[in-house]
């Protein structure tokens, strides 16, 4: 039996983890297990004052339990890849692990009043997006699809928290790996 694992690094509060965990259970129809993840301070880059996303993915691949079909991590830290100023998340395309950064999903990051509902909605959408990549899905041209590329929160807010019909059908074929 393979499980879908969801975990969070120590700084992440309970509500986003719970929202994502519930949604993953509903979407993938697989038993979801929680995992306690270590801090990602080792991936801190002093020059950029951000965290190296690829190092985080490597760490996740190392600690990924043997009975895990997929492992999704949530972190409160701001992630980056060397060529880009930041990433909302990263995944092994067709692999087992993915990470979502919550840092830029909060309204406060943009100098606005906090809004928990918007924040949780964004976290769920990004979780669907990154885990979709682990099932081999690439970016979708449908702007409302969860697999569409978002490079800012406006685009995240513009998409729905669901996959389009084409991505769903591709996912259905790939999901066999879970059960």
């Amino acid at each position: 039996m393979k499980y879908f694992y969801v975990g969070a690094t120590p700084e992440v509060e309970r509500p986003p983890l719970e929202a994502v965990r519930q949604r993953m259970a509903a979407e993938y129809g697989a038993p979801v297990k929680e995992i306690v993840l270590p801090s990602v301070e080792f991936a801190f880059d002093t020059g950029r004052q951000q965290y190296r996303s690829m190092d985080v993915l490597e760490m996740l691949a190392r600690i990924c339990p043997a009975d895990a079909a997929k492992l999704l991590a949530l972190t409160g830290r701001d992630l980056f890849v060397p060529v880009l100023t930041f990433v909302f998340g990263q995944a092994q395309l067709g692999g087992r692990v993915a990470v979502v950064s919550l840092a830029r999903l909060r309204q406060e990051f943009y100098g606005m009043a906090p809004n928990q509902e918007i924040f949780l909605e964004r976290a769920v959408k990004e979780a669907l997006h990154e885990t979709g990549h682990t099932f081999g899905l690439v970016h979708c041209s449908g702007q409302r699809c969860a697999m569409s590329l978002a490079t800012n929160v406006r685009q995240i807010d513009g998409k729905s928290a669901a996959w389009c019909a084409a991505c769903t059908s591709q996912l259905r074929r790939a999901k066999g790996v879970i059960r």
Partner: protein
Amino acid sequence: MKTHWQILVVDDEEVMCESLAAWLREDGYHVDTAASGREALEKAQQRDYAIYFVDLKMPGGMDGIETMMQVRRLHPDASIIIITAYATVDTAITAMKEGAQEYIVKPCNPEEISLLVSRIIKVKNLQRENTILRKKLTRQYRVQDVISKNPKMQEILALAHQVSSLRSTVLIQGESGTGKEMVARAVHFSGDRASKPFVAVSCAALAETLLESELFGHEKGAFTGAGQQKQGKFEMADGGTIFLDEIGDISPKLQVDLLRVLQDRSFYRVGGSQVVKVDVRVIAATHVNLQQAVADGDFRDDLFYRLNVIEIRIPPLRDRREDIPLLAAHFVEKLAHELGRDAGEISEGALKVLMAHDWPGNVRELENAVERAIVTCHSRTLTEEDFSFLMEIRESAKPVTIPAGMTMQEMERLLIVETLRRASGNIKESAATLGIDRSTLYEKIKKYEIPR
């Protein structure tokens, strides 16, 4: 249609290379990486990448600018994006001067890089569509556009190329659907006359008098309905090439007229008294054996020798089966694009079916078969089932065997049974095929006790 486009990321820093490649792969592109300018060039020789991301500063004697210049020599149409961590106005100017399409400073905003790539791909898609449409519109095939690896075809194509700039008349012989017009166009568009008109006339499609006026034009009042002077195809093709398809079907009178044009490059318009002089290269084609037609007295021998200065005989597709996979793949790519379908490949099983078929309709039949399969298929891969209609055709085309000692009556019965089977029992169609009345057919069915 992202998957068609391939990207090469060139950076000596592995983490930089891999992170950009991974990000682009998530966007659906096929991405390769190279750790140096030299490795990039090696890869560029093997694959035609649409976009190159090249780091400006790389060790080993080949920096980004040098790499870009060498790649552009190999692939002038490639889009090159120079990446650097140290932006100066000078390097930006140098990069753009040497042909970089864009210049980005790392780290860059994800939005910027995403927009940049989608903008380039959009332009490339348009360019590609434009090339396909232009080719379709003008059908400006050149010798290198003819797909074949058959040695006989290679010889033919070499000959076509060799004679493309001469004015000598060419006679193309081959079965229907072998691509006679395509070869004619290849001869024209590969030679000195490429910028001049290519005018194609199907001699079989028109009645003698109409064909005469079509070829040579007519004067005002030459015949009823000739309200004004009209240029003929020979005049329209002046400076270029006239392609006379199905030349074997022209009447004896037209054969004489044509002989005169080939001798003097001059003619009279129908109803005209003034000689019209033209500089036209004639390429003729026929699916009938013209030599036999000469021997039978149906075609003038002097015209035959005038036409047959350079002879090109295109082999039927069943004699060059090695071309079937190549042509099928070409048609899948072309037609999937035209029909807006996602079909991309042909399965092993389907290929076996294609290789086993005899293709009486040659390349044209193959193209039609691929189109039918693309329209009816349900996945990206065309399978054996998608071509099952070919097996039905083969089944229905089985020759009827005549056992020794058969009587005329038995023979007639067999013919009726087979005709009815091919027409799925349709009496009207069967009677028409057999050239008899429906009532006669009914009588014979009754007489021979043919079950229906």
